[in-house]
């Protein structure tokens, strides 16, 4: 068990299947035990007891698209960071590897500082 690469990941798959089976069993039990008396009033959209006004999928202003950009940048950075983090202090890497990653992170940090300075990190 766990001797080969794929075998160790198959456990993950089995656990996922087991989790799904347990949820299905829970909902089957729920189906047997629950009451079932649907009515239109029960199934209206909840708006604190009043009749719902307009459509539930209302238009809204998403204020944080700039955050989403920044997030995408830093998320990619962190994916690069993990393999590097494991090897950078092994022989053959050392200060050069650290300096390269330092430059990479510094450029992104500069971007964050720029966004900060421009005032886009303020929730209006």
């Amino acid at each position, binding site marked *: *068990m766990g001797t080969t690469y794929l075998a*160790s990941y198959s*456990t*993950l798959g089995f*656990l*996922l299947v*087991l*989790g*799904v089976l*347990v*949820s299905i069993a*829970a909902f089957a039990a*729920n*189906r047997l*035990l*629950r*009451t*079932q008396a*649907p009515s239109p009033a*029960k*199934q*209206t*959209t*909840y*708006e*604190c007891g009043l009749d719902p006004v307009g*459509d*539930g*999928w*209302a238009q*809204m202003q*998403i*204020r*944080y698209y700039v*955050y*989403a950009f*920044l*997030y995408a940048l*830093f*998320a990619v950075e*962190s994916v690069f*960071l*993990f393999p590097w*983090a*494991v*090897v*950078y*202090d*092994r022989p053959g890497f*050392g*200060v050069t590897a*650290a300096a390269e*990653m*330092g430059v990479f*992170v510094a450029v992104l*940090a500069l971007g*964050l500082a720029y966004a*900060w300075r421009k005032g886009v*990190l303020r*929730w209006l």
Partner: protein
Amino acid sequence: MPFWLELVIRLVAVLAAFMVLPLVVGQTEHKVMAHMQGRLGPMYAGAYRGWAQLLADGVKFVQKEDITPARADRPVFQLAPMIALLPYLLALLVIPLGPNDLVAQPLDIGLFMVLAVVGIGILAVLMAGWASANKYTLLGAMRAAAQLLGYELPFVLAAASVAMAAGTLSLSGIVEAWSPWWLLWQLPALCVFFIAGLAEIRRPPFDAPIADSELVFGYMTEYSGLRFALFLLAEYAGIVVIAALTTVLFLGGWRGPFASEELGWLWTLLKVGAVSFVVIWLRVSYPRLRVDQLQRLCWKVLVPVALGQLVLTATVTLLT
């Protein structure tokens, strides 16, 4: 031991931990909050000081009617609670309980795997909020998206700092590389990781997406019965996973003042319990952060601190 038997034992152990630990945390939350706020907690279920309250809740939830709003997007609405819950089950698979591979499945990239599956939670929130076709749930889901977008970063960067210090992504390997000295020089990362972790699982004071005094119950407003119970279970499972990760990455996992080899599992559980207690404590102590305060804390405090910690970690590991 035959292959299949061992596999079944491992899976059932994970499932049992997943069923029991969140309930223990939930019951502790009822009782601890009651004591801290000077009120009566659950006292009747189970005849002795309400110990069976959560079981009683479960029995109640499973008997309740399953209501899907007429205007909701049915399949997405009904699937969301399971998507919220299952990532935490998968995360428990690789968290080590004790030394000598006392873990359901050792993985070389365990840390990366855990960070990846914990990130799935946001998908469930967006699904629930959008599919309910309700203004409150939509607002809650949008708040949650903004919050988790931001806090994912310091969360991952703080974990990267530990990976750098340990030189491995295996969670057992990280605990083996750990020494008490880490409590000092990884302290900023510990604080960043814990705070960002709280925000990841949307616990107070980071519960703006739920915000019961503004948004009814945020993205869970339309849920009832078993599906609502699964969302609540996901919240407690989230506490367990975040506490376990904090323990394994920063607090030395199974390392204790004595008998780490024999009593490793006990030290791990004690530390997880202590961190969970702090999570509950924070809920009682701090008011909810406003949405703009949330983002400011993340981008202007936590991310810079986490980047600084990366520089510190790189410097210290290369010099020593």
